[in-house]
């Protein structure tokens, strides 16, 4: 065997070994392939494409045209979109106060009373409905034409003004509908958290002269942190992209008065065919969501094992 041949064979073996190793790793990676394909198609490529479209002007028919950041400037200057930004902020803050804060308050109340199961069940019922159905139900309940509540109040001689077409209050009414729907889940999560809190530190603090409010603020709240973080993050993530309830109840109206960012996105892209502007709104929604849920995502995505 000549030296050259030896080298070739040796290289061949080296290559083979390399290949065998690669195939071995490859076999295990096969299990990941379906997940990767689906996530690429449905999520990762769309994220890149939407980001790209955010810098374009595109009506779907003609080729996209690069317009720099003018779509983003529109998001923060066009009156309808600024209004949507403001409404989205109302949604975020409103649900934090009512669907989260008030749920915690009621959970604490419930943890000290008998008949807890009955109340818990009552509050949980709306969670079994979809936001679409909740919106349909409440629209009927509040409607000034044969709505349940105005009809009931009329029996007592009270004339109820229409609430959904009143632009000063309709967003808050709809935040109420959302609270009606998600209060139960948050409440149960808080109750789960409260049940796991040992009684000793609370009692010890009370013996040391802490009042109930202090015990709540300085002992219960810190111990509830993991659950709080979960509920708050969930609330933020869901309300920054709020669509279903304001859309089904009043299509973001009257006019565009109660539009949220998600509704603006839908209207600009799929009704007015401004795909670029729609994409820019999507990017803004994403950035807001990322900022709001940064900590939560870090915890979910952390290394294990």
């Amino acid at each position: 065997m000549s030296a050259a041949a030896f080298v070739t064979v040796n290289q061949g073996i080296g290559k083979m070994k390399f290949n065998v190793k690669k195939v071995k790793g490859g076999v295990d990676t096969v299990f990941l392939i379906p997940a990767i394909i689906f996530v690429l198609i449905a999520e990762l490529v769309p994220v890149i494409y939407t980001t790209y479209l955010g810098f374009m002007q595109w009506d779907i028919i003609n080729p996209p045209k690069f317009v720099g950041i003018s779509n983003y400037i529109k998001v923060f200057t066009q009156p309808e979109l600024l209004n949507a930004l403001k409404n989205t902020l109302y949604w975020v803050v409103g649900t934090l106060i009512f669907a989260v804060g008030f749920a915690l308050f009621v959970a604490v109340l419930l943890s000290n009373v008998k008949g807890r199961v009955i109340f818990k069940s009552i509050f949980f019922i709306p969670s079994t409905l979809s936001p679409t159905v909740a919106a349909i139900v409440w629209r009927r309940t509040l409607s000034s034409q044969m709505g349940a509540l105005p009809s009931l109040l009329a029996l007592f001689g009270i004339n109820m003004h229409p609430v959904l077409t009143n632009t000063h209050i309709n967003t808050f009414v709809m935040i109420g509908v959302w609270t009606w729907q998600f209060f139960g889940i948050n409440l149960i999560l808080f109750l789960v958290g409260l049940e796991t809190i040992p009684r000793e530190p609370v009692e010890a603090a009370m013996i040391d002269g802490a009042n109930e409010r202090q015990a709540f603020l300085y002992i219960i709240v810190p111990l509830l942190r993991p659950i709080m973080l979960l509920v708050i993050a969930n609330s933020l993530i869901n309300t920054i992209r709020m669509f279903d309830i304001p859309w089904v109840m009043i299509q973001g109206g009257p006019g565009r008065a109660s539009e949220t960012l998600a509704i603006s996105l839908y209207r600009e892209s799929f009704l007015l065919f401004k795909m670029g502007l729609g994409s820019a709104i999507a990017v803004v929604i994403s950035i807001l969501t990322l900022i709001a849920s940064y900590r939560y995502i870090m915890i979910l995505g952390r290394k294990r094992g």
Partner: protein
Amino acid sequence: MDRAIKKGLTYLILVVLSIIWVFPLVSMLVIVIKSPEEFNQLHYWKLPLIKNIPRNLITNFLMAWRKSQIGKNFINSLVYAFSAGIGSAIIASLAGYSLVHLNVKKPHVWFLGIFIGNVFPFQMFLIPLYVFLNKLGLYDTRTGLIIVYVGICIPFALFVYRNYAYTLPKEIFDAAKVDGASKWKAYLRIFMPMSKPAFTVVFIFQFIWTWNDLLFGLILSERYRPVMTALSKLQGARGGVPVTVLITGALVASVPTIILLLSLQKSFIRGFTLTAEK
């Protein structure tokens, strides 16, 4: 404050809240037991004759199911929700199994690469998916929507399966290897049967999410609309559908999620708290 007063106040708050919570549901029941004519003629809170109620319920149901085509959309949603629930669970279980119990290089990077899909709001995917499905001829097809729903469901499903896979002892899989079982066999015979709790959580969450979806249905379908999208369109239709029929349709569309949540409430809450654990 006096203890008794405090207790009384607590119950007062709870009872008032309960009334607010139940009121719209009761008022919907008052609607569905009336015929469309009775609803228009009687005062809202005046009930129809008891002997008419069964007939009204059936008439409303048939009008919603057939004439307003809620039945067709209901079946569509069943197809979508089962596909998304089972499909994402199978795909995520394969991935979760390989990330934790096989020798995938840099498993954490792969996990983050897939999980990142869960980080973005759905709005980020809407326009591209609309464009892709149109280009592929899959706009307004069940196949198109199934691909989208399964894809959207995978990141969370993987999160659940991966967390669950860590709780299964590695020794079992090592023992199976020693006994000569292949990786696929270990997956089918050991991982799958042992990860039933993960399946339950994934299935409930993704079935309900898909069932409740309005937005993707609104943008990606016309003839093959899921039921929530169809309902929202029915409500929007001016002067088209009688109120009693619309509300009956909404109640019928809620039956699957009500059944699922009431029978599996524990697993549902468990799925939520899973993400808050250390």
